[in-house]
């Protein structure tokens, strides 16, 4: 394979750490919380259908709705900037932030800014960037990367976090979540109140009203967009719906699917800068609309993936994600959605093996609130990967070798006998916990069954022949 570090290698590396166990536990807890109470006024299946239709309709008319959205934002007194790629987005954002030297920038969680590597860019220009989502703040302190769309520090234990706070914030060690939480509140509060710029992501934009909606449970999204003089909202270009009522459907589905809440604690609708006479709020509101590979994805067989509302449910149900954790994917977006999206957004060759990191079991499709057929899209990406740069070149020679052996009965029988011999040497019907050479990958995460004591042909001869 052409890329330097493969999914396989990263996954094996990750599995040697305690991270996957923590991720597995957390993912299962998340799944347990997903719920849609039967007595809700919002009927589950109809609302999912509705959400799906809204998202597909928006994608099928995306240029029209983006145009309308930009008009609406400007009508509200906001400004819209257009970024074709990460470099342009970073440049545009720096121009706004850089009006003051050494700006203090606070951020609420945003996956698209991870894609841009915005923090590193702004820090290199001498600005201070503080992540305010508790999980993202911890990630930043640890100089790590988020491992899950919804729960960025799924991979860390409370002891890890206690140790980190002790070291970086110079407080006495504690691993009590309540106390760690209180420390973070105090520490981050002064950043909220004194920041020059707040940068948020966008869960969904509304074309009709020019609003951007962020959802958080902590309140950092609201604070980020309420306290600083300037609010910059960075939006992936597909994160849009036509009307306010459509946005209501999307956030209702999102909260239930992401964390099993009927609504997130703070569903924050921002429609422009503060109006004349408003006592507080930002004086300046800038939306940066980012393409960065999305139009390329839209024009391929995988375009349906852009209907994703980033709830993370497909990660939590994915048996592969649960085993290896988010970091093994080596991309901003992990799990089933990342395996389709990443090869489209990134340089294809960089993430070409991700679509193969799935058993196509279909759990992601079952759980997806907008019913994206993720397994089908994974297969599309596999076809493309194989066409462009076959990651399974070894399969050809491997099968040829097998063919050679299978065509020669004597060789075949002696190979089987050798296998049985190895099994007998091993002991009584014991499973192999470790295989040598190229086969050792198999036994890293599971045992290999012992060969039968006799071949099927032998058994047949003794028990059935002549009857």
């Amino acid at each position, binding site marked *: 394979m052409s890329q330097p570090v493969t999914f396989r290698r990263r996954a094996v590396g990750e599995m040697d750490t305690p991270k996957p166990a923590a991720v597995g536990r*957390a993912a299962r*807890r*998340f799944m347990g919380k997903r719920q849609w109470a039967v007595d809700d*006024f*919002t009927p589950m299946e109809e609302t999912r259908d509705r959400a799906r239709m*809204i998202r*597909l*309709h928006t*994608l099928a*008319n*995306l*240029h029209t709705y983006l*145009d309308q959205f*930009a008009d*609406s934002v400007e009508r509200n007194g906001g400004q819209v900037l257009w970024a*074709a790629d990460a470099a*342009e987005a970073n440049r545009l954002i720096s121009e706004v932030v850089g009006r003051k030297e050494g700006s203090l920038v606070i951020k609420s969680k945003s996956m698209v800014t991870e894609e841009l590597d915005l923090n590193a860019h702004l820090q290199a220009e001498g600005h201070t960037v503080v992540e305010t*989502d*508790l999980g993202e703040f911890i990630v930043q302190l640890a100089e790590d990367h988020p491992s899950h769309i919804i729960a*960025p520090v799924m991979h860390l234990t*409370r002891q890890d*976090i206690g140790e980190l706070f002790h070291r970086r914030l110079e407080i006495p060690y504690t691993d009590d979540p*309540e106390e760690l*939480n209180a420390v973070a*509140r105090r520490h981050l509060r*002064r950043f909220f*109140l*004194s920041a020059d710029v707040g940068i948020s992501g966008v869960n969904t934009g509304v074309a009709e009203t*020019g609003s951007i909606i962020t959802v958080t449970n*902590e309140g*950092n999204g609201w604070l980020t*967009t309420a306290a600083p*003089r300037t609010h910059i909202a960075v939006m992936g*270009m597909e994160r849009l719906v*036509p009307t*306010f*009522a459509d946005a*209501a459907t999307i956030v209702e589905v999102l909260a239930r699917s992401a964390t099993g*809440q009927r*609504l997130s*604690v*703070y*569903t*924050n*609708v*921002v*429609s422009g800068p*503060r109006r004349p*006479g408003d*006592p*507080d*709020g930002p004086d300046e509101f800038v939306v940066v*609309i980012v393409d960065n590979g999305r*139009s*390329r994805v*839209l*024009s*391929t*067989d995988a*375009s349906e993936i852009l209907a994703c509302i980033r709830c993370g449910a497909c990660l939590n149900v994915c048996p592969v994600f649960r085993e290896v954790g988010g970091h093994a994917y080596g991309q901003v977006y992990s799990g089933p959605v990342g395996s389709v999206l990443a090869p489209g957004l990134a340089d294809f060759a960089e993430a070409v093996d991700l679509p193969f990191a799935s058993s196509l079991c279909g759990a992601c499709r079952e759980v997806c609130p907008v019913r994206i057929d993720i397994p089908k899209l994974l297969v599309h990406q596999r076809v493309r990967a194989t066409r462009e740069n076959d990651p399974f070149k070894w399969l050809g020679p491997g099968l040829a070798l097998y063919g050679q052996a299978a065509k020669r009965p004597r060789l075949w029988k002696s190979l089987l006998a050798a296998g049985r011999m190895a099994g007998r040497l091993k002991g009584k019907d014991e499973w192999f916990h470790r295989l040598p050479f190229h086969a050792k990958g198999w036994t890293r995460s599971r045992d290999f069954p012992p060969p039968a004591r006799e071949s099927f042909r032998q058994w047949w001869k003794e028990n059935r022949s002549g009857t």
Partner: protein
Amino acid sequence: MERKRFLRTVEAAVGAATLPGLPAPHPGDAVPDLAEVDLTPHFIEAFELLDGVVHHRSPLEVISQVMDERGAEEFLAWDQEHLPADGLLAALAERGYRRASSCLPSDPEGRVPHQMGYMDAVVGVSAALAAFAESGSVVVASGRGRSRLASVIPAVHVVLVPTDRIFRSLSHWAAQADSPGSLANLVFVTGPSRTGDIELTLTKGVHGPGEIHAVML
């Protein structure tokens, strides 16, 4: 990049897209179920499920109690004309509680020093434009005379909820909301601030208020 060029690229991509169900019509407006139900008990049940505290006493008594319990003398609040409780602020002043200013000074340089004054804010008082029975949410609509930070900065948020403004759900409210984009900031607040980031252990009050009190009017 220039808007026109950006949109041309998107349009070309839309043309090549292989989306299921094309031409992908919009589902149309949801038809709200309008059967007559008393929504107040639903709202209270959902709000309490989130650890919100519901009061049926006068706002004056509730706010006084919350202030006294914490030894607080100052509070943040919306202007009287936006609070559906006549004479509330004057009555609080009479009892000796001070309302801190939540209006930014006109000089932009004054913003940060002003806001830093909120570091230890304890109580904030605002009102609900609407409430959702299904989720136990309140709609906090900020604007003229209605500070955003008054609702999100303090440790305790007291929100006045007129019971004739309770809707079934966000979708039901949105279906009839009149120009929801005309205010710069609307927030649907659903319980106290919470996080599960540390080993998914639920803790409250990480950034927003850790306590929310609804005074039913």
